[in-house]
């Protein structure tokens, strides 16, 4: 009895001390919020058109593989999730392994970009950037790495220009939009006023996109802040938390015309999966993809559920064709603690084997 009481007393004492240290940390963070620098890997802008830029990252090693990697990110949020901060940068990891890395930064679209169609993002910007990478690297083929919606764009590009793509890596990229979970359900034609949104705003504002994502997990923020309070005395956690917060709140508008086509043709009609999607009047047939292919889905992804991503394996003609599901959520699979030991080495090893 006395032992139990003394245990409770000891726990209570520890708990009070821990909460006091949390309070102190809270005070410290409030007075001097940590300044986490994101996207710090040195890079050059090697091509620019309108708001879109092509980056070439500086390689820290002497010799690099001849096949360059071009990273294609989504039209929402920022590219620097792939280069969050030193130690949590997928780009740095690729560079350190001897790969030559380029990345497409779509920039922040202005009101004047609202009529740029999705077709131009693929056959205009992306096509020119692929050709620029080939020109700069001297390679006749490249590796395309697409993350989230960027993966969907990369898969479409690989189907339209199969000869230019040697390796295709898709990370949590929706292909079968009928299986894209709640997001697909909420944007259906019966209740989602797509045309009214685009007509009223031009570009879809970030807060509206965010509201959609919040709807996926309405108590996500509460869980996030609960974990923050729980781990706030851990400096590593704090660094990661603030970097992620910077990224999560640093949203960009989705260009209106591109959004209209993306939602209507892909989420509402699922044309890409059916083989009826068209870009610049050309039908996108995923069967034409012959590049070596690796798809990575995340087991707890509610933005792009695994079944929406890995089905691409059945649609393409690649001989070297693989689709895997790794633990984590849509973002966690790339920058979470586990990702450093699972996703990163898995993708890098796969690319290194095929970039010689």
């Amino acid at each position, binding site marked *: 009895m006395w032992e139990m009481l003394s245990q*409770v007393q000891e726990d209570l004492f520890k708990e009070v001390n*821990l909460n006091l240290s949390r309070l102190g940390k809270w005070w410290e963070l409030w007075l001097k919020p940590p300044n986490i620098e994101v996207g710090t890997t040195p890079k050059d802008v090697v091509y620019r*058109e309108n708001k879109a830029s092509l980056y070439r990252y500086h390689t820290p090693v002497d010799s690099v593989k001849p096949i360059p990697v071009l990273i294609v990110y989504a039209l929402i949020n920022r590219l620097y999730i792939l280069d969050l901060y030193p130690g949590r940068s997928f780009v740095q990891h690729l560079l350190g392994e001897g790969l030559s890395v380029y990345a497409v930064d779509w920039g922040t679209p202005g009101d*004047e970009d609202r*009529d740029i169609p999705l077709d131009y993002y693929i056959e205009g910007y992306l096509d020119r950037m692929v050709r620029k990478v080939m020109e700069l690297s001297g390679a006749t083929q490249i590796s395309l790495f697409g993350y989230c919606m960027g993966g969907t764009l990369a898969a479409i590009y690989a189907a339209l220009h199969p000869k230019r793509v040697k390796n295709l890596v898709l990370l949590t990229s929706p292909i079968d939009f009928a299986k894209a979970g709640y997001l697909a359900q909420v944007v259906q034609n019966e*209740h989602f*006023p797509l045309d009214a949104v685009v*007509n*009223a705003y031009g570009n879809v504002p970030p807060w509206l996109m965010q509201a959609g994502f919040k709807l996926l997990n309405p108590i996500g923020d509460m869980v996030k802040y609960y974990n923050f309070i729980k781990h706030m005395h851990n400096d590593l956690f704090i660094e990661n938390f603030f970097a992620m917060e910077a990224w999560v709140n640093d949203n960009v508008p989705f260009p209106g015309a591109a959004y209209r086509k993306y939602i209507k043709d892909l989420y509402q009609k699922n044309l890409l999966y059916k083989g009826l999607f068209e870009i610049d009047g050309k039908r996108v047939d995923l069967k034409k993809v012959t590049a070596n292919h690796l798809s990575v889905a995340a087991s707890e992804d509610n933005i792009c559920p695994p079944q929406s991503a890995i089905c691409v394996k059945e649609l393409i003609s690649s001989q070297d064709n693989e689709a895997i599901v790794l633990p984590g959520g849509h973002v966690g699979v790339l920058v979470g603690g586990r990702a450093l030991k699972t996703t990163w080495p898995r993708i890098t090893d796969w690319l290194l084997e095929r970039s010689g």
Partner: protein
Amino acid sequence: MMIWTELSDQYFQWWQAATTRYLELFKQEPVFLRGFGFTMERSLQFKKLTDQMMDEVWRNLRLPPLEEITRLQERLNFLESRLVALQERDWSEEVRAKLEKRELATREDLKPLKKALTDINSHLPHPGEMSQVREDLAKIAANALDLPEELAGIKEALAQLGAKLEALASFVDKLAEVTATKEPAAKAK
């Protein structure tokens, strides 16, 4: 493990699971989705109306509304894209492709001519038939040797015809003289 932390963790996890389950059911309800869509549509209509009114205000102040500035920027973007597209074009490759195409076109143009030649060739007599043609031509040429004599005969006949015509002409003159002398005498009677 501290008992309070453990208890709060357990409670939070229970709350999170229960709330998530409830919200999942709620947010998939057609009534919720319809309500969400309806509210959104109405608020968008309101926004559009407000924007139109603001545009009118700017115009009345003799200032360009946002819409017009945006359209101008759009045109600039479009021009930039066109310029970049022109810069990016591989002119040498295009010229080569065009020449190749032109050469192909020339080959295409020659096709009917070739066909006509082939047709002519197919209708020409065989070498064996050619010797027959030569023989026929030689015969014609041999027959043509008698032609000058025949021509001389024709000339002679024509000369004789001329003498006969002259005699006929003198007869006609005499006849005219006779009719001229008899006509005044008849008038006097």
